[in-house]
């Protein structure tokens, strides 16, 4: 056998097996682990960002709320009453419509 052929045969000896499910499984498991880690980190960052934004918005509100507790209470009661009135009106409108067309 000439040296060229010996070289090619010796080179070919390092070829990996054509069928090797173990390698595929290892790669895909590692890839999925990587994706899970990235997604978890992304989700955590988003939650932390939202929490920080909410805290930043709430901080000045708490100061104002403490100074205007009575006005705030009246405002909440008024808003609740307004919502109740809207809900009551909607229900009555639906019933009246049903009675007229029924």
């Amino acid at each position, binding site marked *: *056998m000439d*040296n060229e052929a*010996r070289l090619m045969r010796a080179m070919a000896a390092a070829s*990996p097996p054509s069928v090797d499910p173990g390698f595929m499984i290892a*790669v895909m498991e590692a*890839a999925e682990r*990587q994706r899970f880690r990235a997604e978890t980190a992304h989700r955590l960052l988003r939650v932390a960002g939202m929490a920080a934004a909410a805290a930043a918005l709430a901080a000045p509100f708490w100061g104002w709320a403490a100074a205007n507790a009575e006005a705030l209470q009246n405002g909440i009661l008024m808003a609740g009453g307004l919502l109740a009135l809207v809900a009551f009106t909607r229900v009555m409108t639906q019933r009246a419509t049903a009675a007229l067309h029924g």
Partner: protein
Amino acid sequence: MSPDEEARLIAAARSGDSRAFAALVGAHRQAVRGFLRRFTGHWADADDIAQEAFVTAWRKLSRFEGRSTFRSWVSGIGFRIARDARRAHGRSTVRDTAWADHQDGGEATAPLEDRIALEAAMADLPDEQRAAVAMCLGEGFSHSEAAGILNLPLGTVKSHVARGRERLLRALETTDG
């Protein structure tokens, strides 16, 4: 795999389809592993590096611009990981563990003494020359493909392959097969 099929799988993998990525790995794992086995001289390490290269490719798939083939891109990632690992750990471990690889055989058809002589001669080649030889002679990459992966001029790669081949042939001559 046709370029169209590869482009379709890359697009699907980019959108998170792991089965498409598995198909890409399946199509190119032999070339990437074969190249890294010849480049590092240590099969188990090479397979670990190939695994790391594919996982890195999965993570950075959105940055793949399609200027080369997927095989070239992953081989380039593997080459850089292997080169950095070699620089960190030194070259001595290659020869120390080479025997273990020959013991577990693989798909060995060449005489053991030829494989050992080749591995020793490969280990003596400079990194870029060894990489060019491993790609072009070992896995049938084109010279221009290897030039892109190694970020070298085409003429330099051709010269590396020719000189590397001569040195490997001389090493085999001295083993008197």
